[in-house]
């Protein structure tokens, strides 16, 4: 598949927005050391708008750049998982016609099934397995880490990601259906 210019720009700008969100827009959730991070909700949102390739690339570029600029190092295992999650959620793009402004109960369900599967497999399974293979870390630890990260992402995406998509769908509403009231 040839990427058109618009998708390329979407990947580039999307990754920049993700980085800024990831750096600045996160709030303490009340559970120690766990923040509600809007960045992954945004990744899910972008993946539904632009498809699996864009989702995977934004996930990849972002995680790599965030790691590199914040820690001066890149953990490829988690970078790959980010790309994987972006790609899987991006598959929902075919089933949700967000550009037509349709985002009702059925679409919300579809979106959340995709994101839950993506996060469960990605963070709950893929990330720990890669950590064990590459870093030989204890399995209890990495599975718990993965489960916490995955769960946090699932909740964030379910709440904030769904809000983002709903707002976007509303911006596609046609003016014709509206009338002034006195």
């Amino acid at each position, binding site marked *: 598949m040839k990427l058109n210019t*618009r998708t390329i720009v979407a990947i*580039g700008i999307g990754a920049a927005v993700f980085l800024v969100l990831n750096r*600045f827009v996160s709030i303490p959730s009340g559970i120690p050391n766990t923040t509600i991070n809007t960045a992954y909700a945004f990744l899910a949102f972008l993946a539904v708008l632009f498809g699996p390739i864009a989702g995977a690339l934004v996930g990849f570029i972002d995680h790599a750049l965030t790691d590199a600029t914040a820690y001066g190092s*890149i953990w490829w295992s988690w970078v790959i998982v980010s790309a994987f999650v972006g790609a899987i959620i991006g598959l929902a793009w075919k089933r949700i016609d967000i550009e037509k402004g349709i985002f009702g109960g059925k679409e919300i369900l579809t979106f959340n099934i995709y994101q839950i599967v993506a996060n469960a497999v990605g963070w709950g399974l893929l990330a720990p397995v890669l950590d064990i293979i590459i*870093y030989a*870390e*204890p399995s209890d630890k990495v599975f718990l880490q993965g489960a916490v990260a995955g769960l946090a992402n699932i909740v964030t995406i379910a709440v904030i990601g769904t809000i983002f998509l709903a707002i976007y769908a509303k911006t596609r509403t046609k003016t014709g259906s509206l009338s002034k009231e006195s």
Partner: protein
Amino acid sequence: MSSVKMLSYIKRDTPVHNLCGVTKLVVFLAWTIVCMLSYDTRVLLVTLCFSLIIFKLARIRWREVRFVLAFIGFFLLLNDVAIYIFSPEEGVNIYGTRHVLFQFSSRYTVTKEQLFYLFNVTLKYLTVVPVALLFLITTDPSEFAASLSGIGITYRISYAVSITLRYIADIQNDFHNISQAQQARGVDLSKNVSLKKRISGIASIAVPLIFSSLERIDLISNAMDLRGFGKHKIRTWYSARPFKTADYIVLAGMVLFVLVGLYVTFHDGERFFNPFVP
């Protein structure tokens, strides 16, 4: 602007800076791969020494990386503690012997094997750091897209990365402005308010940031189309650095390094170096 400092390119005239970006990218990737595959203490130590030498060559100053190194150090320490809490016998399992030094409780003993294992984990994470830092600090971001394209990634994807690097500063700026304006409307993200309010506060900053950024996408892609982006199968790069003799030497050295490193690690069919077996 109270922008948070990010690690970034520092312009200097050193042999490392003057290498072609493609060379540096290949070295960086090969290096991290070796560090990921190998668990051999000797290989990791030698690699770490090498990277410190290159650090010196690139004339990177201590204060330029001090902050990030402290940050990583803290992170690795935390990670070691976590590993120990979860699995105090991991080292024993890996190396197959058990030399107890002392004991906290029935579950938590300190063994030579566990200490050596933790040392190796830390070393493994640490070895990648200097190379990654080197790569970030000595590679001109405007050359980066050209380098990605140089290792065979399609220029379309390479250009997406270039766009990210180009617009981060603009979007960060937008973020600060939006955040200030929303705070003036009473948005509070601190722990003083309820979780529900915090979420709605965060959405009130994220939503305008995201939607005003989406508007840019069409504009920028039109501007690029109007200037012929995507016309041909390949494109040239204004800021690509030409390949020189030094680059060939470095690449040849890197191949040698990878081969030796992997041989030393795997010649006994085991990726761990085991000093406990007599």
